[in-house]
């Protein structure tokens, strides 16, 4: 919403609206309601299952943070009126590139990461360029890249190393200056203190006995929050944010008033690729290996989170905070169903029901806002 564009002084062109109604008709409303419902639900059904102890909270937080990272990119791109179906393949591809550069080619890890980021941004730009130049739907163009990138992700390691999982990144990253920014943890001192004082559980045995079961906030979560804040400010407080809305709302009208639509869209494709690369780098640094199957179906999970968060599939409408809440709901529901002991084959059923309900709810809210029938 472009509230910022409204001048403070009264203007006869601006319709008066009550503060309550204003608060109610935000795109995030569906996300906020959903978050409350989901937490109430699991507090009721899974409160004694370990879901809300320190390990449990960390578990769904990390999963939600993963969704958030790709949802922010997907959200901004979707508001700009385009889709990116290559996100999941990009995650697999980026992870594999880092592993090949750092392990197979023995480059320093910081260089592997930076080159991979450059590669991903270039691929994002290529995606955008093809969409803009050909005028084809981004759905098709990025679907092509879904297959192309996944194919390379299997082909490269298979050709070079005769296997589909390349490990040993953790050893290669030892002492690297850039790796901890993706795979490290912060506030470890605080958590040790909490563990020492019995506020959170500690390991009972093994080499880590006495250490807290949760020993810090993973950088993954920090990245997720940073990207959400960045995306939110970019979208709601800057001129560029208005351009994103305009490009997705009506590209031709936006062009007439001087919005550089092509540049905006290509930049958004690059940003989505950047988010996918952040996801991949965090994953590779945490687990120490890259596999050809990483990131399968993540593009749809990103889109689902964004849609739950209230964005419109046709572009021009949505919010980053909503997408972040959508990611939180998605993560909490996914892990929460395990905690609640639901038969795991029913997970997709819940996912479908959740998606449908969110979209229905959001449609009603949007009609309330725009007044359309």
């Amino acid at each position, binding site marked *: 919403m472009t509230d910022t564009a409204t001048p403070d002084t009264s203007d006869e062109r601006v319709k008066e609206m009550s503060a309550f109604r204003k608060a109610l008709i935000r795109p995030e409303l569906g996300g906020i309601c959903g978050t409350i*419902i989901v937490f109430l*639900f699991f507090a009721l*059904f899974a409160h004694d*299952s*370990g*879901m809300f*102890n320190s*390990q*449990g909270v*960390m*578990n769904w937080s*990390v999963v939600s943070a993963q969704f958030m990272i790709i949802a922010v990119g997907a959200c901004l791109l979707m508001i700009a009126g385009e889709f990116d179906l290559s996100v999941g393949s990009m995650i697999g591809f980026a992870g594999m590139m880092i592993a090949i550069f750092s392990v197979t080619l023995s480059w320093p890890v910081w260089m592997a990461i930076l080159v991979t980021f450059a590669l991903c941004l270039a691929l994002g730009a290529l995606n955008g360029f093809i969409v803009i130049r050909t005028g084809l739907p981004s759905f098709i163009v990025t679907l092509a890249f879904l297959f192309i990138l996944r194919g390379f992700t*299997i082909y490269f390691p*298979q050709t070079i190393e*005769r*296997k*589909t*999982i390349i*490990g*040993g*990144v*953790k050893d290669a990253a030892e002492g690297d200056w850039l790796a901890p920014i993706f795979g490290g943890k912060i506030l470890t001192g605080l958590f040790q203190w909490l563990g020492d004082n019995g506020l959170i*559980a500690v*390991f*009972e*045995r*093994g*080499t*880590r*006995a006495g250490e807290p*079961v949760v020993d810090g906030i993973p950088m993954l979560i920090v990245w997720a929050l940073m990207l959400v804040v960045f995306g939110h400010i970019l979208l709601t407080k800057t001129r560029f944010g208005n351009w994103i809305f305009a490009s997705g709302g009506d590209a031709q009208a936006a062009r007439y008033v001087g919005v550089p639509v092509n540049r905006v869209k290509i930049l958004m494709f690059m940003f989505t690729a950047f988010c996918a690369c952040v996801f991949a780098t965090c*994953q590779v640094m*945490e*687990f*120490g*290996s890259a*596999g*050809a*199957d*990483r*990131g*399968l*179906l993540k593009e749809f999970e990103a889109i689902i989170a964004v849609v739950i968060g209230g964005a419109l599939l046709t572009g021009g409408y949505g919010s980053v905070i909503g997408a972040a809440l959508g990611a939180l709901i998605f993560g909490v529901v996914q*892990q929460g169903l*395990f*905690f609640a*002991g*639901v*038969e*795991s*084959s*029913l*997970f*997709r059923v*819940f996912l479908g*029901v959740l998606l449908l*309900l969110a979209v*229905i*709810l959001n449609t*009603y809210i949007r009609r309330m806002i725009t007044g359309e029938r």
Partner: protein
Amino acid sequence: MKNLLNSIAVVTAVVAAPLLVATSAAAEGEKYVLVSHAPDSDSWWNTIKNGIALAGEQMGVEVEYRNPPTGDLADMARIIEQAAASGPNGIITTLSDPDVLSGPIRAAVDAGIDVIIMNSGTPDQAREVGALMYVGQPEYDAGYAAGLRAKGDGVGSFLCVNHYISSPSSTERCQGFADGLGVDLANQMIDSGQDPSEIKNKVLAYLSANPETDAILTLGPTSADPTLLALAENGMAGDIYFGTFDLGEDIVKGIKAGVINWGIDQQPFLQAYLPVVVLTNYHRYGVLPGNNINSGPGFVTADGLEKVEEFAGEYR
């Protein structure tokens, strides 16, 4: 607002129904969680589900089966972390990629949860992550044994239909087979994907491009069933040497019909059933077998198929 309330009511009703079922079906006693790496689409794991359910019933313990829906191993790591956080007495898990899974498994062990590694992984890796034992069939060795057997039958070249190429253990089976034959794996392994018609067409394409291929090795029902159809279509059924890992209904029929020479049974039932029994007795009476348990390999041929046939896809 009324719509919203309606939605909530619907959500609660829909979501609560299976929950109630799940809770009432739970038995009293210890709780064990089995985490696998298999995607939802892999039918072979049904035997595991049946095995663990039967063990839970017989031992009077609560058992759960968990898997990452797409087979993404990074998601599997989160599921292990989740399982550990829910505080079970023991976790039974596969170890298909130690880089990804050893961290979460070790954390679970350190948090006081007993772990048994089943199916994928090796006895050495199981020891490294601090697991009590390993129950399964060492993949490379099984492939190697199969390769030796095929070599004895006069096989010189083969096609390995790999339907799960992203799992290192699948590739190890093919590699072991190639080493057993004493040939280079090179281009004799194809990435078939999981889709039956895709697998069938890829096998047909490979065999028409390489008609001199002596043998086919499939890695489970997912790749064996479509391969059977492919061979029936191009008339090579019964002529080409056909070995497969794992059993299933169609594979058993194939063995009976003489299309498949042998199936390697790793007896997945035991991989799910035994860990529950071992863990329960360990927790109740403190007794523990002194070594790892090899559930396979056993070669199933046309002789003695009766029991296999009866329970194929269910317990075999």
